């Protein structure tokens, strides 16, 4: 365990809700509105934490456990992620697999919590969430396999410290394809626009939002916070790849990383402003498309 590795979780815990604020601000500016302050997500969290929770009589312990498990799982995932060449808090060969399964655990409990309410809407959302994540997970694993093969390391810290400008010049097409696949993974996992609309509150079209309809108060705050952290986690995967600035100075790397995260939030905001949500039938098509791109990248690296 390394002290400097604490940077990633600490920064994420402090700044993750800000990412949502920036996305909402960009969307508001695109629509010609002034929009809420970028700090609004913090105020929402504070408000929810001050409220009491209401539990339906049909729910069991699983329903109360789900937000806690989700939040702790995503914090574990954060501890595995490096910033540039700054090593992660926990780094060992094969931490990629742990990362995927920790996030899988989070999803599993969210789905269980949704099914526990016995609501048919939430069951439908759970079914969609599971269907799409079954398509997204292979894309993530294929992308990571490509990077692992390219860098010769099977730990995040090894992979991300090996990606430099030189590597981009030499293997640009492959890395660009992996970045594209990871962007789709990031949008799909965080239920952003081409897959799901985070603003809609019509149960029939929602995926992630519909699963958390029955939560209130601190539980909902935990879920919103975990969702913000998850966006940060997948953003960090993408930014680490697309900002190949490895100076060796921890401060410079971290500053470049934060600028990258800000740019990513703006990019997501622009995508959400310019695109419409895809029809549900089209979503698997897009996810398989991202999978095909990841397969091509892997084949090119294995060649």
């Amino acid at each position, binding site marked *: 365990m390394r002290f400097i590795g604490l940077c990633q979780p600490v920064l994420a815990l402090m700044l993750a809700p800000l990412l949502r604020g920036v996305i909402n601000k960009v969307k508001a500016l695109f629509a010609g509105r002034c929009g809420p302050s970028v700090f609004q997500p913090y105020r929402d969290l504070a408000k929810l934490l001050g409220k009491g929770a209401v539990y339906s009589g049909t729910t069991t312990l699983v329903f109360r456990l789900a937000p806690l498990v989700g939040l702790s799982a995503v914090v574990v995932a954060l501890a595995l992620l490096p910033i540039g060449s700054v090593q992660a808090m926990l780094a060992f060969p094969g931490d990629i697999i742990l990362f995927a399964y920790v996030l899988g655990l989070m999803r599993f409990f969210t789905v269980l919590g949704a099914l526990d309410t016995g609501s048919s809407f939430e069951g439908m959302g759970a079914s969609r969430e599971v269907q799409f994540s079954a398509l997204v997970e292979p894309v993530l694993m294929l992308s990571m396999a490509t990077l692992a093969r390219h860098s010769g390391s099977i730990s995040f810290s090894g992979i991300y410290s090996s990606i430099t400008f030189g590597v981009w010049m030499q293997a640009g097409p492959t890395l660009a*394809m992996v970045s594209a696949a990871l962007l789709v993974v990031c949008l799909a996992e965080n239920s952003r626009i081409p897959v799901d609309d985070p603003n809609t509150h019509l149960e029939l079209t929602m995926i992630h939002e519909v699963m958390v309809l029955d939560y209130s108060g601190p539980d909902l705050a935990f879920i919103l916070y975990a969702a913000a952290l998850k966006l940060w986690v997948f953003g960090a995967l993408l930014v680490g790849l697309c900002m190949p600035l490895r100076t060796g100075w921890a401060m410079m790397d971290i500053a470049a990383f934060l600028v990258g995260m800000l740019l990513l939030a703006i990019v997501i905001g622009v995508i959400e402003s310019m695109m419409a949500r895809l029809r549900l039938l089209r979503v698997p098509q897009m996810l*398989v*498309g991202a999978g095909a*791109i990841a397969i091509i990248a892997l084949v*090119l690296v294995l060649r």
Partner: protein
Amino acid sequence: MQVWTDVILITVVLTNLALTGLSSLGTCIRVMALQGVLLGLITIGVQREQLSLHVLVLVAGTVAIKGFVFPRLLKRAIREAAIRQEVEPFVGFASSLLIGSLALPFAIWLTGRLPHLDAGVSPLLVPTAFHAILIGLLLIVSRRKAVTQVLGYLALENGIFVFGVGLARQATFLVEMGILLDVFVAVFVMGIAIFHISREFDHIDTDQLSQLKE
């Protein structure tokens, strides 16, 4: 230089995948046009010595015919035959995409099995050509409409073009001009044929055409 040739070749592979996965006919035709322009760029990329007049004529001809004339012809065929803007595959989009992406390892394996096919330009050149040919075959057998079959035929021909440009750099001019002319005539005839078929039978579903009885 080789990096850029690789970038173009990979883009050609991706455009071929897009052809298998896109459901809008108009977008497919635009992707095909992009592929035509990319083929012109490959022709420049594989040249080692100074660009000669022959090469420039070939590039201009390729880009003009594949990038602009074919898309126009196909768009006109669609408009005049009033075809619905959807692809209607026999094999679904997701499976087509998977087959398409697995065709690349197969193409690479095939290239490794064939002796002395190293064009000295890029190790990706021959696999890209085989991949395009396989995608072309896939599109021809797995799509319902005559227009999409024309697209498959064009993808197939583009594969042969890449193959020829990379391997036969000396004889390339005559051969390629001949092929371009053939394909031009073929697409022209198909465009007219689609129009007439649709006027006779109200649709261009080739699956139903095979069951016609006089």
